[in-house]
């Protein structure tokens, strides 16, 4: 069984239910058992991270214990806006972001990295890819959050 860390939860930001199901199923198949939360657009993601609006009273993990899987094209607020906000906001600045995209558009990829995403994945995502993703994330997370990686030590 692979785990990011025991403490880490996954926040999936995806408007398309089909895409969301595919990601969730493959996380499951990859054996990732960390808690998973799903929201349907960028605004909801921000609400989640800031524990406001619909998430004001919810029992949810803090941004310090999150990995975000982020779709680009979404209604209300798109993925770019989310990265911009996350990277500019003190409480969420270090949140690992994995972009999910439908097309390998170079400009799209460049833009996401410029805005500060950590990794990039093309949909549909297969569980084998997710496994390697988790390993990469581990590598990213290790130096960033030494105490959080403690679960594996």
């Amino acid at each position, binding site marked *: 069984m692979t785990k990011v860390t025991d403490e880490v939860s996954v926040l999936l930001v995806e408007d*398309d239910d*089909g*895409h969301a199901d*595919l990601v969730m*199923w493959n996380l499951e*198949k990859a054996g990732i058992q960390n808690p998973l939360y799903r929201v349907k657009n960028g605004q909801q993601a921000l609400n989640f991270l800031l524990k406001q609006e619909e998430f004001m009273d919810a029992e949810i993990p803090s941004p310090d214990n999150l990995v975000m899987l982020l779709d680009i*094209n979404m209604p209300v607020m798109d993925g770019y806006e989310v990265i911009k906000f996350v990277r500019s906001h003190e409480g969420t600045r270090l949140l690992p972001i994995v972009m999910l995209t*439908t*097309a390998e*558009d170079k*400009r799209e990829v460049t833009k996401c990295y410029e805005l500060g995403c950590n990794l990039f994945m093309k*949909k*549909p*995502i*297969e569980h084998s890819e997710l496994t390697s993703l988790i390993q990469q994330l581990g590598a990213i997370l290790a130096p960033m959050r030494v105490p959080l990686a403690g679960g594996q030590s």
Partner: protein
Amino acid sequence: MWLDKVNVLLVDDHEPNLIALEQVLENPELNIHKASSGQEALEMMLTNEYAIVLLDVNMPEMDGFEVAKLMKARKETRNLPISFVTAINKEKKYAIQGYEIGAVDYLYKPLEPEVVKSKVSVFVELFRLRKQSENRLNVIQSSMDGIAILNEDMRFVSVNDALVNMLGYKEEIDLEGELYELIVDPSKDIELTKEIFKQLGNSGRWKGEIYCKRRDGGAFPVSASLNQSSNGIICIIRDITERKAAEEQMRMLQSVVENANDMVVVTDPMPINAPDGPKIRYVNAAFERVTGYSKEEAIGQTPRMLQGKKTAREQLNKIKQALIEGKEAHVELLNYTKNGYEYYNDLRIVPVKNSRGEVQYFTSIQRDTTSRKTMEQDIKRANKELETFTYITSHDMRSPLVSLKGFCGELEEALDTLQPAIESGLSSLSEQDMAKAQRARDLYIPSALKYIKLGTQKLDSVTGLLLELSRTGRRDLSFEAIDVNQLVRASLDGLGHQIKQSDISVTVDELPDVVADPGAFAQIIGNVLDNAIKYLDPKRPGEIRVQGKVEQAHTIYSVTDNGRGIPKNQMHKVFEVFRRVGDVEHIAGEGMGIAFIKTLLNKHHGRIWCESEVDVGTTFFFSISHHLEQQMSVQ
């Protein structure tokens, strides 16, 4: 009145006689020449003009009569008046002899000074009158205008050279005696002729334009002035053929300018820097039509009345600069009609200079390009919309495609997962149902999945290409000098595997370098080479040749193959999006390549075309404009 001195010749062999006579005649109005022999006198008469010769009769060697005879024999001296001076021959006989020879008078010695003086002065006066009338005749003769006098019978009595020439005769004598009809041709206009004579009868004069008849029958236009005088009708005729032709030409040009579809405006050359600028001198009908200002409203105003708040200052300055330098200018302005409507004005302004190089007017040809401009803008907008549309649709199509792809995989995996359950479940079925279920498991489901996947893949690659095409259209190219030989080599290296595998021989000539977008050029040449390889004929060894040449405005590259060729009736399809030519089911590609190339070449002010023969091969040519170089050097 100022008078020339008049020459008088005195001939006498006796010096004292000459001196005496000279003293008698002494007068500031006279030049008195003296000759002491007949021979000398004759020589002097040839070089000088005399009012009278006072000729001594009794001279040795050649006497006065002999001199007179010789004078009469010569054309130059024939009409020179002679007055014999004699002391001896007082007899009538001699006198008669003298008159016969042509003397006009006799003076007898001893001379009475008053008589001599008054006689000579008569001849001097006569000479002067003759000179005067000769001069007047000269004036008439040398006139450029034709001059003639018609007598009562309406025949020419006197004509000048100009008229003789004008009417195509050789000498005055040929024309004299001819009828008036030569200058007032009644066959041309009988009513006018009647009118002319009626007016001549009433007021004694007529002036106007008529047609004269030449000897060869041809007619030509003249301006004529006819005056009744006591000597007859004096006609002064001026040939106006050239003026008429020029007028005709002028009328023609005027009509062209007036009725041209473009606006024509003529302005004064000055003042360029004054607040209102040069004034309008002329506008044509198109100007009235487009601007709404009538000629009367426009003339005297300045072209500034057409300008408004959106008229670009830098364009106006460009005109101003050209005007100051006396040069041409070509600009596009946003102008305003009388009613305040905007219109785009393509304006070319040209200085009209006189022979000294000074600007006399500025003429400008202006064209209302509003509809073209609007159309251009519409096309641009439509293109933009189309690109955006293509981008959005192809982008939006990807989301469901991703679902299809993903869930196909899920289904496949789920089917695998279910296999043991199905296997064990099958045994509980009836034989018939089991067969059906097996068929569903082994054929229907896998086939359905296969076709869904294939369809998805196809859709995926098409939307991918569409996306790329719309991106190509929106991409900004940057032009730089590129090493074409190296680019082509790199491109061929990329295709090396295919080339080796199919054993194709590739020849690359020395290629001219060019200014272009390097990425785009690589895409273009790569695509054309790829095409050449794809469409080779498997029945014979493939040969591909890459060439290039520099032409005046473009550099042209070509790729020639010995492939299967394109049938004539399918040639046009080569360049359409999503088309592939001929029996090419097994050839990979979506038929989008050429569409990309076309878009890219459009941005290089170039194009792509091909020549092909079935079973012989195809040559694809593409051109890249040299204009890009200029754009670059401007930056």
